[in-house]
């Protein structure tokens, strides 16, 4: 890797890119039918090829040669240094730079900071100044670095699979455009992803004014239509909710996975965690009631959880409304709500919720999940209003993006069918793959003479289109984006387009006949908005990552129209009397399928099921029993006479009588990584059943191998994750430590010449009370530390390489289980068992208490792994990076060695970051400040559950946390003296409810 760094540092970025994409290795990858480099690794040729990747592996081979053929290894390799010819301004080779930009995702812009090494973006962090991020990120943002360097991204315009140039496209387009212009764009249709970019929106309106008769449809498989429609019902206009979870004492979530799936989840998690963080037994905590079907990570954080079929969630909402109005004198606009027939325990649950809400008027919140129908959203809004939560907890702004995507796509498909559309432009989406099955978009597309498809990949849709245009990655182009609250950020490129991509903005300007590059277009737009373009303001916008001076949406005051809401309820379709229901939801790893070709995401275990490289039909144990299937058996699910086979996955704590189908798998043209991984559940998703649909499920033939990173789900009564209620904590703050008694440490060794007292002494705190198990840390670590992926077959052999893993245990009864998350990085034990057994001193201790791992010293006895009670060590059983495409090297962190096969590796507390800051401090002749060194996992964590620092500095955050009564170390009876410690988890149950 170092070699790479040296070269890249001294070379203008575009050159290195040309070189890379032009390099023979690369071509081979771009052209040949690819080896499935994540598959079985038996038929390897000798390791020599690895030399290409890093000189470490070269050394290995050198050693090998030495061992085998004697002294051949002693000749010195010729290395070149390629300096710039002119030094770009404010670039200092060897010193990474950070730029602020914004990532378009889920119809909003997520503010990020990107680290760039000599023109290679290598790491993504949250932007502390950005309201939707506050410095944290989700895994998708972290992983988009890998997406940028994905060699499977489309590189050239293509006409029916044949490579073309942009000029050729223009010559093809121009006559068609003039024809279209003549008819005002009749027959022209655009299908795009909803965007949070004002510039892009402006450009779209421009298009529509240029082609008045053209139609514009937005469609994203995972959309917010329900919520927006709900707001229309309740408030009479499309409205967006800004929820301040840090203001809520009681949260009632109606199937809303607001900590992960809902937009702005990172901010939600931050605010939510703010009210779970306790320093002493006097602190209070919020209480979360979760009513859901699937077992979501939000559900795993709930204090009370009601598992119920998706169609019943609405009934619960109605029962809640009834109970509030009937028993807790809550005024619901004079509308009377009939009692709802539900089972007694459910009603009891509802009653308690109602009681708790009533007790916390103005300090509570009711939210409905995106998969719930509009009326549920409307009712939730109404309840918030009735409970006086509007204002203190939830605020409304206009919805900049009215939605109606579901009707949109259906309508478009219809008019494609009737031949009204003769020129379709698909901008970014992948309708062929993810449009509702019943509209059969592929067939409709065939009826459209000209289809132009702009996309990051030559995907399922592009394959069917007459023209495919390569799109730029968001890190390659200019643009802008709105945070959830409307705050704007400029999207600035970190790197010149690696391939011949153009952004949607640029493509639209092509259609306008005024080709321009994105940079100019964005500046032009802001110049228009600011009246006159101000360079200083522009620079500040780029520097801060947010456009200065209140660009947030204006708040709107709206009173709910109760009659409308209840009218909507009266129109509500009756829930299916009996039979199973399916619920479609985005996948925790690949979302709607757009990350399917991202090996980091594919190998990232699902936070709850721990499944990698797959999706499955999630169902409760009882449901599985009733179907007569076991985990991994194939079941055939049919919805409205559409049928598919999918593996069943038994999930404790899931609602009976329902099957959850994660979206985003079973892609056919995702790329080498994503093709044919998992099951395409879009096949069952129809316009009428986009979220919830009645279904029949029966046992299928055969078994499917679902691979999990965690095979055993129970704690076996071991005090690993320590948990208590707030009450227990108040009674006995020490409860966590008393859950395990450790014998007094006695030692054979009395003459210890050293101890770990001289500051700094590094330590890490992990607060189990705020960890939501979202996996952001795992991906951040993977990106920071060049952690390889190994593929499904190797994970099946328990050979995954993650340096930080999140253990998830189910506690309580299998049917109605609760779940706990426990991130496990290296414990950096002071008395590290791994060190004692290493015969070559390859792992040992630094003065500041780091358990160091010296790859170049390691001979790979694996004894350390055996002797690690936490099993955090990872061994390179094979040359994982052997068949890795050349270009992936550019995603590597140059400060971290790329490990070759045969060596052990593990979490280092990001020693490279420690050293960097230490050197900075030394050069400046100053001391390190607390919080100056931030580990990758800590930086990404949306809930600030991870805190790193100097344990010997009494003022440091980590030292204060260590001092808390809740803090405990894992397996302290082994006297390993871990530096990583945990803060016990607390639940805040409603006591009456417990009694009930």
């Amino acid at each position: 890797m170092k070699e790479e760094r040296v070269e890249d540092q001294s070379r203008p970025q575009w050159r290195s890119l040309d070189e890379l994409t032009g390099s023979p290795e690369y071509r081979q990858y771009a052209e040949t039918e690819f080896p499935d480099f994540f598959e079985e690794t038996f038929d390897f040729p000798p390791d020599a090829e690895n030399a290409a990747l890093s000189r470490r592996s070269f050394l290995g081979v050198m050693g090998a040669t030495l061992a085998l053929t004697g002294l051949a290894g002693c000749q010195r390799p010729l290395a070149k240094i390629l300096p710039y010819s002119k030094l770009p301004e404010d670039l200092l080779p060897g010193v990474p730079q950070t730029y602020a930009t914004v990532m378009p995702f889920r119809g909003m812009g997520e503010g990020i900071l990107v680290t760039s090494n000599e023109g290679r973006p290598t790491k993504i962090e949250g932007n502390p100044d950005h309201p939707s991020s506050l410095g944290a990120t989700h895994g998708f943002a972290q992983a988009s670095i890998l997406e940028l360097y994905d060699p499977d991204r489309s590189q050239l315009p293509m006409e029916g699979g044949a490579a073309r140039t942009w000029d050729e496209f223009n010559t093809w387009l121009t006559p068609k455009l003039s024809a279209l212009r003549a008819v005002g764009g009749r027959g022209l249709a655009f299908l795009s992803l909803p965007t949070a970019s004002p510039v892009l929106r402006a450009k779209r309106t421009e298009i529509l004014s240029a082609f008045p008769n053209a139609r514009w449809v937005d469609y994203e498989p995972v959309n917010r239509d329900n919520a927006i429609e709900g707001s229309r019902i309740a408030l009479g206009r499309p409205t967006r909710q800004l929820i301040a979870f840090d203001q809520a004492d009681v949260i009632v979530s109606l199937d809303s996975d607001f900590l992960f799936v809902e937009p702005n989840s990172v901010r939600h998690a931050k605010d939510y965690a703010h009210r779970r963080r306790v320093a002493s037994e006097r602190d209070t905590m919020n209480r979360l009631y979760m009513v859901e079907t699937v077992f979501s990570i939000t559900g795993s954080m709930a204090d009370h959880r009601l598992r119920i079929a998706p169609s019943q969630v609405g009934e619960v909402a109605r029962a809640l409304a009834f109970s509030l109005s009937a028993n807790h004198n809550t005024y619901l606009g004079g509308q009377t709500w009939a009692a709802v027939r539900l089972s007694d325990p459910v009603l009891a649950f509802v009653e308690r919720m109602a009681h708790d809400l009533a007790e916390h008027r103005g300090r509570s919140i009711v939210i409905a999940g995106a998969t719930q129908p509009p009326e549920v959203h409307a009712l939730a809004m109404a309840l918030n209003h009735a409970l006086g939560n509007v204002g203190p907890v939830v605020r409304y702004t206009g919805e900049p993006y009215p939605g109606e995507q579901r009707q949109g796509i259906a309508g478009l498909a219809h008019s494609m069918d009737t031949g009204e559309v003769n020129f379709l432009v698909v901008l970014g989406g992948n309708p062929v793959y993810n449009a509702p099955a019943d509209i059969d978009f592929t067939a409709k597309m065939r009826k459209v003479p000209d289809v132009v498809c702009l996309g990051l990949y030559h995907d399922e849709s592009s394959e069917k289109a007459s023209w495919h245009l390569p799109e730029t990655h968001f890190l390659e182009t200019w643009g802008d984006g709105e945070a959830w609250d409307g705050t704007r950020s400029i999207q600035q490129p970190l790197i010149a387009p690696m391939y011949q991509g153009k952004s949607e903005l640029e493509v639209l300007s092509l259609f306008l006949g005024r080709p321009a590059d994105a940079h100019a277009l964005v500046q032009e737009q802001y110049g228009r908005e600011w009246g006159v373009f101000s360079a200083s303001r522009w620079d500040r916008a780029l520097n801060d990552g947010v456009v200065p001076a209140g660009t947030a949406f204006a708040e709107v005051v709206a009173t709910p129209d109760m009659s409308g809401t209840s009218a909507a309820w009266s129109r509500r379709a009756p829930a299916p009397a009996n039979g199973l229901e399916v619920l479609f939801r985005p996948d925790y790893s690949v979302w709607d399928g757009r990350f399917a070709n991202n090996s980091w995401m594919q190998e990232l275990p699902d936070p709850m099921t721990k499944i990698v490289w797959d999706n499955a039909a999630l169902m409760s144990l009882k449901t599985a029993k009733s179907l007569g299937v076991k985990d991994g058996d194939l079941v055939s699910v049919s919805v409205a006479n559409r049928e598919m086979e999918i593996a069943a996955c038994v999930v404790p704590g899931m609602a009976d009588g329902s099957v959850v189908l994660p979206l985003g798998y079973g892609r056919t043209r995702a790329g080498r990584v994503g093709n044919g991984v998992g099951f395409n559940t879009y096949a069952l998703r129809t316009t009428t059943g986009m979220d919830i649909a009645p279904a029949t499920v029966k046992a299928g033939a055969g078994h499917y191998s679902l691979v999990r990173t965690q095979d055993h789900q129970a704690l076996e009564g071991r005090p690993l994750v320590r948990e208590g209620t707030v009450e227990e904590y108040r009674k006995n703050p020490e409860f966590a430590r008393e859950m395990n008694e450790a014998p007094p440490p006695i030692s054979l060794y009395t003459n210890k010449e050293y101890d770990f007292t001289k500051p700094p002494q590094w330590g890490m705190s992990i607060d189990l009370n705020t960890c939501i198990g979202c996996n952001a840390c795992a991906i951040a670590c993977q990106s920071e530390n060049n952690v390889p992926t190994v593929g499904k077959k190797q994970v099946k052999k328990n050979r995954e390489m993650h340096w930080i893993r999140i253990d998830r245990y189910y506690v309580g009864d299998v049917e109605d289980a609760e779940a706990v998350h426990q991130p496990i990085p290296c414990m950096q034990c002071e008395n590290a068992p791994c060190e004692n057994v290493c015969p070559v001193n390859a792992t040992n201790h630094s003065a500041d208490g780091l358990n160091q791992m010296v790859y170049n010293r390691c001979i790979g006895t694996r004894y350390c792994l055996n002797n690690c009670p936490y099993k955090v060590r990872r061994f390179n059983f094979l040359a994982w990076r052997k068949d890795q495409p050349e270009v992936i090297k550019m995603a590597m962190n140059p400060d971290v060695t790329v490990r070759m096969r045969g060596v052990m590796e593990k979490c280092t507390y990001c020693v490279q970051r420690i050293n960097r800051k230490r050197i900075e401090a030394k050069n400046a002749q100053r001391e390190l400040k607390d919080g100056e060194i931030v580990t990758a996992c800590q930086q990404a964590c949306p809930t600030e559950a991870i805190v790193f620092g100097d344990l010997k500095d009494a003022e440091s955050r980590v030292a204060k946390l260590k001092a808390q009564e809740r803090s405990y170390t894992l397996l302290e009876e082994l006297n390993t003296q871990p530096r990583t410690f945990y803060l016990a988890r607390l639940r805040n149950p409603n006591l009456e409810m417990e009694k009930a």
Partner: protein
Amino acid sequence: MSEKSAARPSAPSPPYGVMAEFVTPADLMRATGRLRARGYTKIEAYSPFPIHGLDRALGHGGSKVPWIVLGGAVLGASSGLALQWWTSAVSYPIRVGGKPFFSVPAFVPITFELGVLFSAFAALLGMLALNRLPQPYHPVFNHSRFHRVTDDRFFLAVEAGDPMFNVERAEHDLSDAGGLNIEVLQA
């Protein structure tokens, strides 16, 4: 053979001694006694296997091998411990598992093993040295039937170094003692 036949006729050099063959250990024992009684001091017996009391009968002292081995043991153990101490506590002290640089308990096994190793070498080399081995040639090999000494025959040699050595008398005494195939050994 060639050397032997070459040596035989022209025998100016003084002989090494006179050697006789015996059939059983008992005979050898008896003969040894006789010769000792006659006052011979420099006689040596040869046998296919060790015979109890024979070296006493020949008037040999005890073996010195034990002392050599003791030396080896001490050297081995001490160098073993020294190696571990110097590398772990002096040359490059590295913190390992919170144990001291000089972790005596952990260093015991290797110390012991090296002690054993060195003593084993001492035993072998000591034995060879005291037996003046390797020594491919020795005058006794010149006896025409000596090759059976490693099979089933027993030999007794009176060496020329003996003060009362005299070829004729030696031959006579050996045959008295029941020795067969008596031969004069060329040096």
